[in-house]
């Protein structure tokens, strides 16, 4: 058992993956000596060498495109995208190459690649440093998309993603990197990667979140409890494929759902989840699924980001609104 921040947990998970499998490579901008701008790869180049922890030229399409070739050669590249907003130059390689290789080769070519993306806002950064691109990747067949929300998941999920034979977009809530510490038991057996998790039981409303919003939603549930409202919270963890059986079960119990994320509400994950809940739990719904998301504007200047991002009060307000039906 060690107390770790999310950043340290991811670093420890990466280290263990590299120890376990010599085919695991890390590539990205400034991942070497610097250890990445968030220090997630801190010390790894020193211990595993420049051949396994590779500082790349400043070109995201180049990073992902060459990683495709490494995967074809039998390696398991773990690519770091420095900030969410900089994944787009690599978008073509990700959606047209990485996502389709297994399909078009009828399984002959595997793409065991992990693309790590620090995502979301709340760190007072300038434009392009606080995006939430998950929905675009989840819309793309062939990719898998997961988001961790705490140190324990960070430690295990990154290792599971690296072991996995399909390409995984691995979303890390950068706002949480150095926030809270948690006990990580390196000997435990983690839950399977592509599963959601019930993290707080309740009977009145089902609250769905992932990544950075999990902490916020737990706080909202706590506050709601003070007001006598029993809120059940589920950490989705996997965005593609979605694991909604537990969600449907919860909805059949509560009849009310709030789904929260930082991404723009329009066509965000909440849209898909809302649609599926209606398809599966039509007769159980007492109220429409309510979405609490980033507004449909570009991410704003840092001085107003806290008001732009869904927070405890906005989630609470949504909980009240669904109970109002």
């Amino acid at each position, binding site marked *: 058992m060690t107390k770790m921040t999310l950043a340290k947990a991811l670093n420890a998970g990466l280290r263990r993956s590299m120890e376990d499998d010599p085919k695991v490579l890390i590539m990205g901008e400034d991942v070497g000596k610097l250890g990445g701008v968030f220090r997630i790869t801190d010390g790894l180049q020193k211990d595993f060498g420049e051949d396994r922890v590779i500082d790349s030229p400043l070109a995201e399409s180049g990073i992902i495109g060459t990683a495709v070739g490494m995967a074809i050669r039998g390696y398991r590249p773990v690519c770091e995208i420095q900030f969410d907003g900089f994944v787009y130059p690599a978008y073509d390689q990700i959606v047209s190459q990485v996502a389709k290789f297994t399909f078009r*080769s009828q399984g002959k070519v595997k793409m065991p690649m992990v693309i790590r993306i620090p995502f979301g806002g709340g760190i007072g950064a300038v434009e392009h440093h606080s995006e939430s691109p998950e929905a675009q990747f989840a819309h793309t067949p062939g990719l898998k998309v997961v988001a961790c929300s705490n140190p324990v998941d960070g430690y295990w999920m990154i290792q599971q993603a690296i072991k996995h034979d399909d390409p995984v977009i691995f979303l890390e809530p950068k706002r949480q990197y150095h926030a809270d510490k948690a006990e990580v038991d390196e000997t435990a057996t983690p839950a399977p990667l592509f599963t959601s998790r019930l993290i707080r039981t309740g009977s009145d409303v089902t609250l769905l979140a992932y990544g950075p919003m999990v902490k916020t939603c737990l706080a909202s549930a706590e506050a709601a409890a003070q007001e006598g409202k029993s809120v059940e919270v589920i950490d989705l963890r996997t965005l593609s494929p979605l694991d909604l059986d537990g969600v449907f079960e919860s909805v059949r119990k509560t009849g009310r759902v709030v789904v929260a994320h930082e991404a723009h509400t329009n066509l965000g994950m909440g849209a898909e989840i809302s649609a599926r809940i209606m398809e599966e739990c039509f007769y159980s719904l007492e109220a429409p699924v309510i979405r609490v998301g980033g507004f449909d504007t570009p991410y704003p200047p840092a001085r107003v980001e806290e008001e732009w991002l869904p927070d405890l009060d906005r989630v609470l307000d949504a909980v009240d609104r669904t109970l109002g039906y």
Partner: protein
Amino acid sequence: MATPDFGPGVGEVFGPTHRDGGPELVQLLTPEGERVEHPEFSFDLGDDAIKGFYRDMVLTRRIDTEATALQRHGELGIWAQLLGQEAAQIGSGRALNTQDFVFPTYREHGVAYTRGVDPLRLLGLFRGVDQGSWDPYANNFGLYTIVIGAQTLHAVGYAMGLQRDGVVGSGDPERDAAVVAYFGDGASSQGDVNESFIFAASYNAPVVFFCQNNQWAISEPITRQSRIPLYQRALGFGFPGVRVDGNDVLATYAVTQAALERARNGSGPTLVEAYTYRMGAHTTTDDPTRYRLSEDVEHWKLKDPIQRVKVYLTRHGLVDQDFFDEIEAEAEQLGVHLREGCKAMPEPTILDVFDHVYTEQTAELAAQKAAYSTYLDSFEGAH
């Protein structure tokens, strides 16, 4: 292509804007079938090899004409013809070792043939029954790539893998390997292709960038993409570039061989520009009369890659009629193989579509597949 005019004063102000970058055009067999010497490159295989190349080119052209005919008869949805590029593909393909790996575009039918891929398999993508059914690992020949330039980065990444596997510069010819990235003149404008030059130079990766400059990117002439000879692009990235007569199978072999050798022994990347011409349409759906003159095509007919070898072989009495007859017979067989094989290709079924999206089918897809299958069954009898 002539050096463009950079306007007044450049000479004095900045000095010449580019250099020759090596022999302007490496040629070892003239269009007239004459062997010529080149100060830096020589073809050191014997006449048997040349006979082999001739056979390869004839069969490759046959693959192309058969496939074109199959498209005309509605057996293929579309076909990307290589007519005129046989020497560029056979010369480079035959320079490869088994352990080398190839990342092709959608037009490398001749290279595929040299790798031992059954030409029939090349038709699947164009017939619409699959997206490439050959096993890339069986012949070290990757799947065709439609998105222009994307494969060049894959090639560099694979080459970086070779470096990490210790099969570069080991000195053991059985062991050392290289990668060839094929692409076109139009592709040279894509960001990915230029990034592949950056990465290859940065890591000194064992890759040969083989650009078939067939003068056209659909309707756009090479001058839209570059105002200087393409091989000189390499100078901007710090590795050698050379232009070879892509219609000269001997020169293409020699130059590719040298470039591959550099890659395998750890000397890094090379850009080879095979100067050739797209004799046919871009694809069977294209109409070149809208954008190019038949004179051009006529002019290039005189440089035909197969004819010059035939002239060489016959003039020097290296072959007799039987030689040509045997190849013709072989081509006939190949034609039959393609025609019959094409029509006999197994049709895909919609339910298979759900099976290889991931290495293991997800519950979501299993459900979609099951639901659709039930839906389809509901029509049984109904219709």
